[in-house]
C-alpha cells in the first residue's frame, strides 16, 4: 500500500491568545493535504479569521505547533509565505486601476511582465471584470471588489491558498463561477483553506469541514459526515391524490405512534408533512397504508438535512462564552 501523502498543513494544539488567558482560539488540530479544500465554519467571533492570520504568519501563535508546506510556522518566514496565497477579510487595494492593480501585484510577487499581463487578462475575463479594467477598485461595487480581491491573489503561483470569506456579498452567478474555478485549481493540486458563512457553498466546495465555536474545533468531517452526525431530523411530505376525508384521523394516529423522534408539521385534507430522524421505516409504512386504503400517492418527498441545519444543531448546543477559557 502506498504511504499516505505528507500533509501540506498540520497543526498540533495550536493557539493564539490576545493576552495571557484570553484566547482567540486554542487546541487547534487541523490537517490538510495537497488538492484538498478544508472549510472553516463558525459563528462570528469563533476564531476563524484569527486562525487564518496565524496560519499565514501575520500573527505569531502563542501555543502549539504547526507545519505549513514543510516549514515550521514560526521559523518558515518568507520561504513559507512565498508559497501561499491569502485573500483576507479586509479589502486591500492600491491606488491604481483594476488592471494595473493586478499586474502590479504580480510584479510585487516577482512574476515576470509577460506572464503578469496574460494572467491579468485571464483573471479579468474569469472574474467578469473586463469592463472595469480602467476603473479604480474603490469605484467598483462591493461584489466586484470582492471578485477583484480573489482575482488579484490568483495572479501568482502558490501551493496553498487561504480564503477568508471570499464570496461575501457576491451574487449567486459570481459565487458559482469562483467556486467552480477554485474546485478546478484544487483538482490541479492546490490546497485551500476557506472560511464562509454561506454553508451551502461550503457543502458544495469543501472536502472536509471543521466547525469552530468559541475558539475550539467542535467537530470535523466531510459535509456528509457532519450532516449525518449532527443533522437531526429529515423532513417528509406525503401528498395524496384527492382529500383523505375519513381516513385522515387514522393516518394521524399512525404517525403519532411513530415515536419520539417524529414530529408532525402540517396536516391538510390531501397532504401531511413531518420530520423524523430515520424516516425510511415510516415512509414504507405510509406507502403500505395508502395502498391498503386505495389512496394513491401524488408525491412523496424526503428532504435531506442541509449543512446549515446540521451547523445550527452543533453550535446552538454551546452556550456563549470565551474561547477555550
Amino acid at each position, binding site marked *: 500500500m502506498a504511504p499516505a501523502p505528507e500533509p501540506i498543513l498540520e497543526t498540533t494544539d495550536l493557539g493564539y491568545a490576545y493576552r495571557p488567558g484570553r484566547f482567540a482560539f486554542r487546541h487547534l488540530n487541523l490537517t490538510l493535504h495537497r488538492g484538498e479544500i478544508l472549510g472553516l465554519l463558525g459563528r462570528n467571533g469563533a476564531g476563524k479569521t484569527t486562525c487564518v*492570520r496565524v496560519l*499565514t*504568519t*501575520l*500573527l505569531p501563535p502563542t501555543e502549539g505547533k504547526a507545519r505549513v508546506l514543510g516549514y515550521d510556522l514560526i521559523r518558515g*518566514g*518568507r520561504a513559507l*509565505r*512565498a508559497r*501561499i496565497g*491569502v485573500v*483576507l477579510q*479586509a*479589502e*486591500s*487595494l*492600491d*491606488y*491604481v486601476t483594476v488592471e*494595473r492593480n493586478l499586474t*502590479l501585484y504580480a*510584479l*510585487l*510577487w*516577482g512574476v*515576470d511582465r509577460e506572464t503578469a499581463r496574460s494572467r491579468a487578462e485571464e483573471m479579468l475575463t474569469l472574474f467578469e471584470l473586463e469592463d472595469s479594467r480602467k476603473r479604480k477598485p474603490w469605484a467598483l461595487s462591493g461584489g466586484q471588489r470582492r471578485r477583484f480581491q480573489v482575482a488579484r491573489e490568483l495572479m501568482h503561483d502558490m501551493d496553498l491558498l487561504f480564503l477568508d470569506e471570499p464570496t461575501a456579498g457576491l451574487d449567486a452567478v459570481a459565487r458559482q463561477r469562483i467556486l467552480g474555478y477554485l474546485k478546478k485549481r484544487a483538482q490541479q493540486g492546490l490546497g485551500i483553506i476557506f472560511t464562509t458563512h454561506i454553508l451551502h457553498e461550503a457543502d458544495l466546495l469543501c472536502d472536509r469541514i471543521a466547525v469552530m465555536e468559541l475558539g475550539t474545533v467542535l467537530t470535523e468531517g466531510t459535509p456528509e459526515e457532519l450532516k449525518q452526525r449532527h443533522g437531526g431530523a429529515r423532513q417528509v411530505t406525503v401528498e395524496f391524490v384527492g382529500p383523505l376525508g375519513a381516513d385522515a384521523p387514522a393516518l394521524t394516529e399512525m404517525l403519532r405512534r411513530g415515536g419520539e423522534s417524529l414530529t408532525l408539521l402540517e396536516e391538510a385534507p390531501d397532504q401531511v408533512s413531518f420530520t423524523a430522524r430515520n424516516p425510511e421505516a415510516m415512509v414504507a409504512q405510509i406507502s403500505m397504508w395508502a395502498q391498503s386504503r386505495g389512496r394513491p400517492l401524488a408525491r412523496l418527498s424526503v428532504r435531506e438535512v442541509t449543512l446549515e441545519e446540521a451547523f445550527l444543531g452543533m453550535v446552538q448546543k454551546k452556550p456563549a462564552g470565551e474561547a477555550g477559557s
Partner: protein
Amino acid sequence: MRLPPFARLVLRNFVSNLDPVSIAVRFGQPAFVVVVLGIMFTPLISSSDATTGGNYMAFLVPGMVAFQMVLGGVVAGNLFWLDRRWAMVEQIFSGPFLRSEYLAGLVVTTLIFSLAGAGIMLLVALPFVGLPALSLEGTLVVLATIALGSVFFSGLLIAVGSRLRSANLYFTIQAVLQYFVVFLSTVYYPVTSKTPRILAVLVYGNPLTYAVNAVRDAFAGNLGPQDLISLGVLGVLAMAIFGLAALGFRHLDPGPVQ
C-alpha cells in the same frame, strides 16, 4: 530579471501611491515658498545683515533643501498609513517579504523623494541665486545630511504611526510635528543674539537645525568641524530612530485600523 524584494516594494510605492497631482503639489509647494518668500522677504532684510549673507533667498535655499528630508519623512508616513488604512500592510506582510524590507522600502522611497526635492529646490532658485559653490566635500556633506535626515524623519513618523490605530490621530500628530519641526529650526531664519533664550533652546533641540546649518555651511563653503559633528549626531539619531521603527514593526499587528 527579477528585482530583489525590497526593490519591488520601492517600485510599488512609486507606481501605486503617488499620483502625478500629489507629486506636483509635494514639490511645487516648497518651490513656491523659495520663490515667493525669497522674493518678498529679500527687500525687507538688510543687505548688511551678516547672518543672511545679505541675500535672503540665498539664505533660504539651503534651508529648503534640508527641509526636503522632513517632507520625505512625511511621504513615508503617508505611504505607511495609506497602506495600513487600505489593508495593504497586512496583504504585503502575508507575502514573500520581511517586515524590515517593507520598512527599508519606505525609507528608500523617502530618500529618493528628498534628493529629488533638493534638486528641484536648487533648480528653482537657479535664476535668482545661481548655483552654490559646492566643493566635493560640501556635496558629500549635503547628500549625507539629506540621507540621514530622511532616515531620521521617516523612521520617526513610521515609529509614531506603528503605535497608533487611528488615521485621524496619526495625521493630526504628523501635521503638528511638521509644523513645530520646521518653525522651530533655522530653515527660515537664523538664531541670533536677539533670539529669546527659550526659543534658541528649542531650535537647538531640533535635529533639523543641525542638518540645515550643515547644508548652509556646505553651500557657503564654510564647512567646519561642527558640521561633521552635526552629521555624526544626526547619523546616531537616525540609526536609533530607525531601530525604534524596526522594533515597532516587529510587534505591529497589521490588522484593520480606523
